[in-house]
C-alpha cells in the first residue's frame, strides 16, 4: 500500500496519452502496413505494441505500480509471465499442427 499521492495533472496527461494511442490504433487499422512495407504481420505487431504500451501506462500510473514496492512488482511481473505462458503454450499447439503426423499406415 503505497501512500504516494499523484497529482491530478498526471492522471489527465496519461488519459490524454491513452486517447491518442486509441486514435492511432483505429487509424492504423485502415492502413495495410503488411503490403506497404513488405513485412509480413507488421499490422498485428504494431497494433499489439500499442496495446502493450497502453496496458503499461494503466498499470504504471493508474494502478500505481511505478511507486510500489518490490513485492508488488513481483506480483505484477508474475501476471505478465502467466500471460506469456498462456500465449506461448497455446501457440505451441497452433504452430505444430501442420507438422507431419505419426502414422501407422
Amino acid at each position, binding site marked *: 500500500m503505497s501512500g504516494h499521492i499523484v497529482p491530478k495533472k498526471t492522471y489527465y496527461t496519461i488519459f490524454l496519452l491513452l486517447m491518442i494511442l486509441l486514435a492511432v490504433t483505429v487509424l492504423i487499422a485502415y492502413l495495410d502496413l503488411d503490403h506497404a512495407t513488405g513485412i509480413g504481420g507488421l499490422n498485428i505487431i504494431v497494433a499489439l505494441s500499442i496495446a502493450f504500451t497502453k496496458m503499461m501506462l494503466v498499470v504504471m500510473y493508474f494502478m500505481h505500480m511505478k511507486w510500489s514496492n518490490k*513485492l508488488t512488482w513481483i*506480483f505484477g511481473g*508474475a*501476471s505478465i509471465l*502467466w500471460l506469456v*505462458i*498462456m500465449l506461448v*503454450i*497455446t501457440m*505451441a*499447439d*497452433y*504452430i*505444430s*499442427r501442420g*507438422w507431419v*503426423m*505419426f502414422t501407422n499406415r
Partner: protein
Amino acid sequence: METASTISTTTAPTTMPGAANGVFEMPKVTYLNAQEGIKSWLLTGDHKRIAILYLISISVFFALGGVFASLIRIELLTPGPELDAEMYNRAFTAHGIIMVFMFLIPAIPAVLGNFLLPIMIGARDLAFPKVNLLSWYLYIIGGALTMSAMVIGGVDTGWTFYTPYSTTYSQSYVFLTGLGIFIMGFSSITTGLNFVITTHKMRAPGMTWSRLPLFVWSQYATSLVMLLGTPVIAITVVLLAAERVFGVGIFNPNLGGDPVLFQHLFWFYSHPAVYIMILPAMGVISELIAAFSRRRVFGYSFVAFSSLAIAIFGFLVWGHHLFVSGQSAYAGIIFSILSFIVAIPSAVKVFNWTTTLYKGSISYETPMLYALAFIGLFAIGGLTGLFCAALGLDVHITDTYFIIAHFHYVMVGSTVIAYLGGIHYWWPKMTGRGYPEFWGKLSALLIYVGFNLTFFPQFILGYLGMPRRYHVYPPEYQVLNILSTAGASVLAVGFMMPVFYLLWSLKYGPITGPNPWGAKGLEWETASPPPTFNFDATPIVTEEAYAYDAEADEAAYQAALQQGKR
C-alpha cells in the same frame, strides 16, 4: 500462549467435544452475539461472519446440485429414457455448474479459509474486510443470475460450454449463465487477493513463513491460482458472449476463428481450478493428520512447497483435456509429460501424511476418519489421473465414465471429504459447541461406503466404454449403473445426516471450551467462539507449527486410562 497450552495439557489430549461438558462456559461476548439483527450480518466486515454467510449459501447450492445429481442417477437406473435427452442435458449441466462454480471452488477457501486464515496467523481480520463482504455479494449475485437461467429453461451445453455448440447451436440460456459465472469469478479473485495480502502483511509477531500452519500455505497457493487463473475464464466467457450475441469471430471458423481456442482458454483456467478445489483440501488434511496423530507434519517444508509447486505446475498441463480435440500431436506429447510432473508434489504430500502417522499417537475421531478416507480416495483419484494423462490410454477413456469416476474421486472423494472433515474439526471453534461423535462417525462411514459404491463401478463402466452425457445406454451396463445409483442413495443419506446433527448441536451440543482436541495452532488459543477481533491481545508466536509431543501425550493417555478416566 502459555495459559492456553496449559489448558490443552490438563484436559486429556484427545477429548471428544462432548466429554468436556460442564467444565467450560460459553464466553459472554463472541462474534456471534457482539451485534444483533439481520443488518449486522448482511453488512458485517467480520471475516468469521462472512464465513458463516458463505457456509449457509454454499450448503444451499450443494443441496441444489445434489438434487440434479439425483435426477441423473435416477435416469441412469434403467437403460431406457426416463427423462428426454433435452431434459437430461440440462440436468447434468446444472449439476456441473452448481457443483463446480458455486460449491467446490468457494467451499474450503470461502468458508474455512475465511474463518481460519486470519485467526491462524494471529490477525484481527482479513486485510480488506469490506472487499471480503463484496466477494460474498458478488457470489450471491452471480449465483442468482446463474440459477435464474436454470429456472427459466436451463443450459444444455455441459459445464464446459464447448464451442461451436455453445456459440452457434445451443437454444438455451448460455449468455445468462455465462454472466453469472463471470460475476462469481470476481468473487473468487477478491477472496484470493485478500488472502495473499493478509498472509503477507498481517502475520502476528513471530509468525514467520516457516511457522505458518500448512493450511495457510495451501490457502496462499490457492489464492495465487485464483488471482492468476480466474481473469482468463472471465475473458473467455466475454469472448463467448461476444461471438454468441454480436457475431464477433473468435471461435467460429466461418468468421476466422478456431473452436479449439475456446478449449485452450477454458482449460487454462479450469484445469488450475481443479487445484483451487484440491489444494485447500490438502491443507485441511495436513491440519487433521497432525492434530489426531499428535505429531508435527513430516517434512513440513516439503509439504508447504509442494502446494506452491502444484499451483505452478497446474498451469502448464491444461492441454491434457484436448488430446482428442484436434490439438497437434506434438503439443499433446508435451502436455502429457507435464501432466505426469504434477503427480510428484501430490505424491510428496500423500507420503508425508502417511509418514506423519508413523509412530504417532493416533485417535479416530470423526475428522480423522475423514482425513484417512481422504488419503485413500485421493490416492485412487490421483493415480487414475495418471491413466488420463497418458496420451495413448486417454484416447480410449476420453468422455467415458472413467473420467467421471476419476474426477469425482478427486472432487468429492477428496475435496468434499476434506471440507466435511474440516467442518467437523473446527465446528467447536465456529459455534462453541460439539457435535454428537457417534452420529459424526456414522455419517463419515456412510459417506465413505456410499461414495465408493457410487463411483467405483463407474471406473469399470468407463473402461468398458460407456460414454458420459448420454441418457440411454446398452442393457449390459445396467448392473453397474444400479450399483452406482444405490451408492448415490447411501451417499445422500450420509450427506444429510450432518445437516441435522450440526443444527441440533447449535442448541443442545456440549460446550467445548477453547481447545477440545488439545490441538496446536493459534486458532485453539482463543475462545470458542472467538471474539469479534479474534484475540484479546495480539498473540506472540514462539514455537514451530504443530509442536506436538506424541510421547508425552501417549503417556498422559495411558495414565488417564489407568486412573479409569477414559
